[in-house]
């Protein structure tokens, strides 16, 4: 195989791809813009909803308010709550969302608190579970009720000559000892392996189709087959461009995702400021070296499959099932309870997903990393061999 010829094919395919609007959009524009736009949209919606909900008064009904006039008064004074007098059909109204919550006081509540302290009273709060406005109303009510209860407890303790501190003989303090990198790594390790694997696959898809089925459709396949270069050189040059596109798409997406995550707290002050992206160079390099042979597998398999198609559309149909085949094992990093073991270390895609999760969380299971890198390299070599065989098959090239 002549490396000069491989280089000539690669340069030509690169020039060709960079002039193709569809390739530029799928490999560069979409990966750069998709995450920021998605995050901006989600952030803007979240901020809008949170702001609106916190500024808006929630409508609350008090049932038997005369049984607890003091507590009822405190609820009425709550700024974010608007108490309505009419308590008819409150369950129906909560379901209709015209009422966010209702508070029901037991008979003789405040009287019994004073006279029968050993008999606990139950205040019922009616809500629409998991509905944002209803939950906000419930939280505000609970806060008022809790404060009221704490005051009663303090009074009772004082009347017995004790101090409120007596109720708290000790307190617990939680302190984070994990580095920012590990805290971030745990979160990133959960989602990032899946994204990286899927991006590697989708990044290779368009160029793989364009340089195989696309060439057949445009009638240039016979032109290049009539040139004196070897089939191996042709396959390798095209494969390298597919791999480049796959890695560029993935890298751009990850950089864009990282920048977006870092920018979100500055853009939306209402959202959390705690998330700090910190991935060590060692972890990034380890993930890259494990992803590389997997990207080779994807590029080679997609080229080989797309070559079997007569045209672009047929190639898309042929490659669509591959996406589903990859999504399932790639999801392994997101499923709790799936841990790396010697058997799973040989399952393509899933092995990389699981080990990348560990690496991003700061763990380096070296024996598994070795097995996974080695086995994925074997799969990559097999995929390349398969792609080369497809380019030598007259049946595949000419569908005869």
């Amino acid at each position, binding site marked *: 195989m002549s490396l000069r010829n491989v280089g000539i094919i690669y340069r030509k395919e690169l020039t060709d791809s960079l002039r193709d609007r569809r390739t530029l959009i799928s490999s560069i524009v979409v990966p750069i813009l998709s995450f920021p736009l998605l995050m901006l949209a989600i952030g803007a919606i979240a901020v809008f909803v949170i702001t609106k909900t916190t500024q808006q008064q929630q409508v609350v009904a008090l049932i038997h308010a005369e049984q607890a006039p003091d507590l009822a008064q405190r609820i009425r004074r709550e700024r974010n709550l608007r108490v309505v007098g009419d308590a008819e059909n409150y369950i129906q109204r909560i379901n209709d969302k015209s009422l966010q919550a209702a508070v029901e006081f037991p008979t003789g509540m405040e009287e019994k608190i004073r006279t029968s302290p050993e008999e606990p009273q139950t205040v019922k709060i009616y809500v629409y579970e998991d509905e944002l406005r209803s939950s906000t109303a419930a939280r505000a009510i609970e806060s008022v009720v809790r404060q009221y209860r704490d005051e009663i407890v303090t009074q009772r303790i004082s009347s017995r000559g004790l101090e409120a501190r007596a109720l708290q003989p000790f307190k617990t303090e939680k302190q984070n000892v994990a580095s920012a990198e590990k805290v971030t790594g745990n979160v990133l390790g959960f989602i990032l392996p899946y994204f990286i694997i899927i991006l590697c696959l989708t990044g290779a898809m368009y160029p793989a189709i364009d340089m195989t089925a696309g060439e057949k459709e445009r009638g*240039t396949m016979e032109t290049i087959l009539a040139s*004196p270069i070897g089939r191996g050189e042709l396959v390798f040059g095209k494969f390298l461009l597919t791999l480049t596109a796959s890695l560029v798409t993935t890298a751009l997406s990850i950089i864009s995702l990282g920048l977006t995550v870092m920018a979100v707290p500055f853009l939306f002050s209402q959202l959390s400021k705690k998330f700090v992206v910190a991935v060590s160079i060692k972890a990034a390099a380890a993930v890259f070296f494990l992803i590389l042979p997997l990207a080779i597998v994807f590029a080679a398999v997609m080229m080989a499959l797309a070559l079997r198609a007569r045209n672009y559309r047929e190639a898309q149909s042929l490659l669509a099932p591959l996406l589903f085949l990859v999504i399932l094992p790639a999801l392994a990093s997101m499923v709790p309870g799936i841990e790396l073991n010697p058997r799973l270390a040989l399952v393509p895609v899933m092995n990389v997903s699981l080990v990348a999760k560990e690496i991003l969380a700061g763990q380096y299971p070296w024996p598994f990393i070795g097995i996974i890198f080695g086995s994925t390299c074997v799969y990559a070599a097999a995929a390349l061999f398969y792609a080369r065989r497809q380019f030598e098959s007259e049946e595949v090239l000419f569908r005869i």
Partner: protein
Amino acid sequence: MIESLQLCKQFQDKKRGVVRAVESVSFRCQPGQIYGLLGANGAGKTTTLRMLATILKPTSGTAKVAGHDVVTEPQKVRASVGFLSTATALYGRLTAQEMVEYFGRLHGLDEGTLKKRVDEIFNRLNMKEFRTRACDKLSTGEKQKVSIARTLVNDPPVMIFDEPTVGLDVMTARTIVGFIRECRQRGKTVIFSTHVMSEAEKLCDTIGIIHNGRLMAEGTLAALRTQHNLEDLEDIFVQVVGDQK
């Protein structure tokens, strides 16, 4: 020179079983001559020429092209052949010059020689005007010129044309016919396939009539006329092919 020796090609078809596209085709074409392969659609012309250009491998038999064996030295054969057909399209996103340069590099030309060669061809074919225009933006005639330039860039001794004028307008077809004649004048070995009788009459030194994958008749136009006692090539063709039906 091209020397075809008992070339055979079989395909496995799901519906039809084994299809014998080309059966024991032997002929010889000398430098400075044009050999015309005349046949109806599906006769086996394209398959024969694709085997000579080493795009397809023969099932049995072989051929020598410019002294190289198509079975054992396919890359050397391709380096000695300029192959032009309606199926050999251009890369639409490359400019005319980039397209020709790309194939020059694939033929192993160094940058100095390539530049000289490209300038010479673009001057000769009067292509300067659209040199930097993307192939997708060219007219049919201009595209044909780029295809011709591609086949000429390494100055191959053998030219193979597979129905090069199909679907072209009269003026573009004339350009191609003129180019084929010029190849003969320059001492190249030329083989071309067609089903247009007038083209074969005008151009060919030797005509081979192919039907159902077999070479049914061969000779100069004069020899075929004498042999079949007919003047018109179309009548000769119908008689040869008709005898087999």
